[in-house]
């Protein structure tokens, strides 16, 4: 039967406006069509395999949505037309005029609508709201999921990372099948599955001083779910400069913090932390670990604060730092006030544009890794020496609980205890120090060399590299 191809798609069908296909159903026809013209597939279908919502398919004069969708039967004399929708409007989606709720939405949000504190007006405010979530990871997962479920009209997501296996312990928007995929694609799919009424906008980019202000322009509220200090300062400053509130949360091991920064009369992040900590002092989740549920708890607190700002109800965390101790299950608060002398948001601000945040946090871009200046031995060479029966002493400077995960049979002195226990080591022997990835053991080697140990070297890449290059049975962690 004839398949009529609309103008915008003819570049993918060798310029043909009509294509002949033989098929018994619409689904079969589309398979054959995209088989013949593979570039058409991405234009017609979303990643979840469904037709993009603006693609209409007509069999003669009937929309397949009112027939049997992909199973709609076809006869040779039928004409199938692919017709992208034509629509538009004179005001942006966030205008109050644009937020009437359809019957489907009224039913979906009924549990909101029956509460006078939300009601139709509140739900319409949610629909009109545009929230930008920085990060689709630990905090971003619960944050975005709940904002989508609540009916926030436009959700922007900023993340350039790819889903890693170790993320699944806490980044609940991603699943096993998403490992290796960009986090944005994985996240957007789940959000659309929960609530197709949400306009999910993806920004697969690193947030930088060059793009932050432009990105923030189209949104009303920014939710910071990032995992590093330079970006936290960047988000804060860009929020103050753009006049948008910054709903903030952070997590570390078993504790978290949450607040709302960058409002006109309230404090900003710099009022609380005028200076970043020295680089390397505060470990990342990969270095220090984090209880999986913790970002869940804090992310939903963030979502709650976003929604309260939109609705204009309740008592916001503006001017309050919420401190969460998950192990003790205690919630404390610190009062925060705008620092009158704050260079960013005070009475006489001195910062009027975004700066180099890597530099501000003391991270020199292409800094030589601390391991490079220390004498090293590669895993393969160590293995060869051990197999040869050489008298090499292996010093493990990790923590006892790490030793339980996996070990090379080394002598365990955690790095923190090394200065006090150096006398347990024989400086006449050849020593190879190792840790998980080679960073701590490099420090150990430096310490030992300074103390006069001449024959000590660092196992390059630590036990992770050993597992990769010498013994694959050693588990990675």
């Amino acid at each position, binding site marked *: 039967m004839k398949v*009529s191809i*609309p*103008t*915008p798609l003819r*570049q993918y069908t060798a310029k043909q*406006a*009509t294509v002949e296909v033989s098929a018994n159903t619409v689904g079969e026809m589309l398979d054959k069509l995209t088989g013949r013209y593979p570039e058409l597939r*991405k*234009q017609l279908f979303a990643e979840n395999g469904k037709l993009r919502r*603006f693609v*209409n398919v*007509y069999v003669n*004069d009937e*929309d397949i949505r009112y027939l049997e969708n992909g199973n709609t039967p076809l006869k040779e004399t039928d*004409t199938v*037309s692919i*017709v*992208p*929708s*034509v*629509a*538009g*409007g*004179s*005001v*942006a*989606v966030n*205008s109050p*005029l*644009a937020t*009437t709720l*359809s019957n489907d939405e009224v039913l979906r949000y009924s549990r909101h609508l029956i509460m006078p504190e939300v009601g139709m007006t509140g739900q319409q405010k949610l629909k009109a709201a545009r929230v930008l979530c920085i990060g689709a990871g630990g905090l971003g997962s619960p944050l975005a999921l709940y904002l989508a479920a609540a009916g926030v009209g436009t959700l922007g997501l900023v993340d350039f990372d790819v889903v890693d296996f170790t993320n699944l312990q806490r980044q609940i928007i991603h699943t096993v099948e998403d490992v290796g995929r960009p986090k944005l694609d994985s996240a957007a799919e789940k959000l659309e599955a929960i609530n197709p009424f949400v*306009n999910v906008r*993806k920004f697969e980019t690193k947030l930088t001083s060059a793009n932050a202000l432009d990105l923030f322009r*189209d949104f009303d509220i920014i939710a910071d779910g990032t995992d590093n200090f330079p970006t936290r300062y960047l988000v804060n400053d860009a929020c103050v400069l753009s006049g948008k509130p910054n709903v903030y949360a952070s997590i570390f091991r078993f504790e978290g913090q949450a607040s709302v920064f960058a409002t006109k009369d309230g404090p900003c992040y710099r009022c609380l932390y005028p200076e970043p900590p020295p680089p390397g002092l505060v470990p990342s989740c990969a270095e220090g670990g984090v209880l999986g549920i913790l970002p869940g708890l804090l992310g939903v607190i963030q979502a709650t604060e976003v929604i309260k700002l939109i609705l204009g109800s309740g008592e916001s965390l503006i001017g309050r730092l919420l401190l969460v101790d998950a192990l003790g299950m205690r919630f404390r608060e610190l009062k925060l006030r705008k620092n009158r002398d704050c260079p960013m948001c005070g009475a006489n601000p001195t910062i009027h544009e975004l700066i180099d945040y890597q530099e501000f946090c003391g991270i020199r871009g292409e800094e030589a890794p601390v391991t490079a200046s220390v004498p090293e031995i590669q895993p393969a060479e160590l293995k060869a020496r051990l197999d040869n029966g050489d008298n090499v002493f292996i010093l493990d400077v990790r923590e006892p609980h790490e030793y339980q995960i996996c070990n090379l049979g080394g002598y365990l002195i955690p790095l923190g205890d090394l200065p006090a226990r150096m006398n347990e080591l024989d400086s006449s022997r050849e020593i190879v120090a190792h840790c998980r990835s080679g960073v701590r053991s490099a420090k150990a080697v430096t310490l030992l060399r300074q103390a006069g140990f001449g024959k000590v070297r660092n196992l390059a890449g630590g036990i992770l590299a050993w597992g990769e290059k010498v013994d694959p049975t050693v588990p990675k962690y």
Partner: protein
Amino acid sequence: MALKISKGTWEQLRRHGEETYPDECCGVLVGEADGEGVKSVKGVVRCGNLRSDSPHDRYLIDPRELVRIQREARGRAQDIVGFYHSHPDHPARWSQTDLAEAHWTGCSYVITSVINGKATETTSFNLMANPGEDETKYFEDEEIRVE
């Protein structure tokens, strides 16, 4: 990049917006594209606005009408080269909604600003897509040549 249109057709397009004011009008531009960036509008087809829930600031053309219009145009060796709609009491510039809902790359989107019932400015925008990136599309200003 330019859109050629006869004076009569151009006035029909603008008058449609005056007639439907304060609601948005919408319709299809039928004609030919020369393959080098110039489209010639041979005729306009008025369409109904399906957005009866919000017609003063939203429009939606029934896909069924698009199917019919395309079929009839092809019968005359012509094609759909674009669409037009009006912005009641609003500038003749594309909005975020216009861009979000635009999917006919290569086609012209013509907008007429109708202030207090009178058509003022009419502008045209060509929908462009960055090759290979299906998420990014944008409107490029297009010259209208009324002849």
